[in-house]
């Protein structure tokens, strides 16, 4: 079968996911979901090599625990797409809600528009797994809190600041947050510090910018000015080391 098309209108998420799983098990490589409207948990825990096009607005926890598939959403995403994701890709042609990429260990998320609060919170990395979250416009407060690994990149395509709220990277102890257009230092969280990008950092960021531009069909050239970017990293790998004493 070339492409499986499922009309999700009025369908509960469990039968929808059952159909997706059955198709993946049968070797289907491309699935298109039409008329998606708030169904949560789409592709939760699904493994393997499959591309799923989602037309409409999927509900919360899109692709949670997912390990491998590629999801492309033509619409906005809700709460926590890519939650605790292991591997795969989520591309959102729109905005996304709170806790995008919460605790994700691997894979990539590209959101064309803005995201809500707590984006990239507690992202981590392990061996070859380095999760990536790229946000086209801006993020709300508490971006990258408790981050333990991976890269968050905010491109500020809307023309305003990438983030202008508190708690940026509080408790960050691994990974990096890269912002286009700098950051007002008052918004830096406890344990986060701002440093310039090295050549290696820039090479990594540049490839993410180009990948983002490719996904959304935009010209990357205006975004390729290194001096516009700043990098937020942990001030220490042990944010709580000075808080406790043993009895």
């Amino acid at each position, binding site marked *: 079968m070339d492409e499986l098309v499922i009309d999700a209108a009025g369908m509960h998420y469990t039968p929808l996911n059952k159909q997706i799983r059955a198709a993946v098990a049968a070797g289907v490589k491309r699935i298109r979901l039409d008329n998606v409207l708030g169904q949560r948990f789409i592709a939760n*825990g699904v493994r393997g090599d499959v591309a799923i096009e989602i037309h409409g607005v999927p509900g*919360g926890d899109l692709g949670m*625990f997912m390990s491998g598939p590629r999801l492309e959403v033509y619409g906005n995403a809700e709460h926590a797409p890519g939650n605790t994701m292991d591997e795969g890709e989520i591309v959102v042609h729109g905005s996304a809600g709170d*806790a995008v990429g919460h*605790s994700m260990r691997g894979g990539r998320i590209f959101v064309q528009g803005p995201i809500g609060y707590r984006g990239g919170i507690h992202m981590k990395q*392990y061996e070859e797994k380095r999760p990536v979250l790229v946000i086209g416009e801006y993020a709300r407060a508490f971006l990258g809190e*408790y981050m333990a*690994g991976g890269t968050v990149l905010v491109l500020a395509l809307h023309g305003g600041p990438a983030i202008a709220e508190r708690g940026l990277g509080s408790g960050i102890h691994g990974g990096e947050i890269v912002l286009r257009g700098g950051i007002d230092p008052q918004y830096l969280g406890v344990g986060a510090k701002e440093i310039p990008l090295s050549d290696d950092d820039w090479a990594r960021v540049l490839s993410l910018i180009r990948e983002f531009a490719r996904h959304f069909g935009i010209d990357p050239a205006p975004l390729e000015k290194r001096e516009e970017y700043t990098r937020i990293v942990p001030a220490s790998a042990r944010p*709580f080391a000075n808080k406790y*004493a043993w009895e």
Partner: protein
Amino acid sequence: MSPSIGSLPPKYRVTVDRDQCMLCGRCVENCAYGAFRIDGDRIRTNSRVCTACHRCVAYCPRDAIDVSERPLDYRSHPVWTRGVREAIYNQARTGKIVLSGMGNALDYPMIFDRLVLDACQVTNPSIDPLREPMELRTHLGKKPQRLDLRKKDDGEVELLTELSPNLSLETPIMIGHMSYGAISLNAQLAMAKAVSAAGTFMGTGEGGLPEPLRPYQGHMIVQVASGRFGVDIDYLERGAAIEIKIGQGAKPGIGGHLPGEKVNAAISKTRMIPEGSDAISPAPHHDIYSIEDLAQLVRSLKEATEWKKPVFVKIAAVHNVAAIAAGIARSSADAVVIDGFRGGTGAAPRVFRDHVGIPVEAAVAAVDAKLRNQGIRNEVSIIASGGIRESTDVVKIIALGADAVYIGTAALVALGCRVCGNCYRGLCPWGIATQRQDLVDRLDPEAGGVQVANLIHGWTLELMDLMGAAGINSIESLRGNRDRLRSYMIDQALMDVLDVKSVGA
């Protein structure tokens, strides 16, 4: 600047009886803290480093070692106790939060010990479990409100109601979540062998599922906590059930923190974090800020595992535990774990360990009553944990409304733990709370497994005898059966919460 506090009196004094000692050196080998050394023809001791773990006492072939507590105490005072004074000295020196090991160390009255059990006399005969069947099998998970049946043409009856997956336990005693990292692989292996042999279950904690435990995965409950360490779809599918940890009785309201120096190669692998990196579990789950969000995580876990596994939610016993549990019962969760304020831990801030939360006895009674009043007791099972010390505690907490219990410290004691409370040091001479290979090797998982299985078996036999004496032949008839309890010297307000009458009444 010279500090004005000076050194504090040692907590213990270790002495070696020279007449008994034969200089075999076992004490020197066994003490991980360095309290002993051989000096010519005698053993010299350094009492200051002693933790009273008794490893030396247990392995001295001549009973030559004596460990005494508080050899030089402070002037006694009921208000300014040793603990209070030493916390002040510590904080005056460091300016930090004081961390401590094991569970609640304050002398609160023990409700369990103020409840007495019933036995049959004359008017109804007691039951002898040797000659009559005694049903202890316990099913954890949702029970249907009603059953829809259909009689088929051939006369057979067909069940139309779709049943939720349940865990089936041969005895209502499980082992709670202690992670790989907090305890050693051999300690986990011993307990995994024990629960497999006893037909019950244990929790993985938030440390992932190490490969050597996979043969026992059918008896493992995998935990999903706020750090999501070691959590992937493979891990979720391996567990017999999944448990979301919201809170812990030893430290309600705060997260956890495994320091980077404890994250060695093996622990890095199961937690799926880089070696040497801190493993920080935030205080809340940052994808759960409401009861609706909790329902979403419960359903997300079920959806990811195709609704084949029960999902438990563990909370610390706190003031409004009954209302919280009622919310959890409506979240699609299959069981709620109530962890009382006596629950153990490797490390917790002293103020949390000793002052935050409520006893499991009151919490379970309140949760059971609330769920029954709302007509949703069948929606969730209740698992009680935190301070279950012996089989009578199991009987009493089931009579107060629990379905099953988790034990923690008791299982470690069965492995040799002496409750010295230095788990956080990583030097456990019993091979339990350590990752140092030479210490871990001291704990034989085979022998340890037999010991823990023996404990569960012994308690199970006592459970049957206690039930039989009370004229009960099925655990179902004990559950919530408060008439089998009487309170002894408990105030009226607490009696009302427990819904238990006074002795004599």
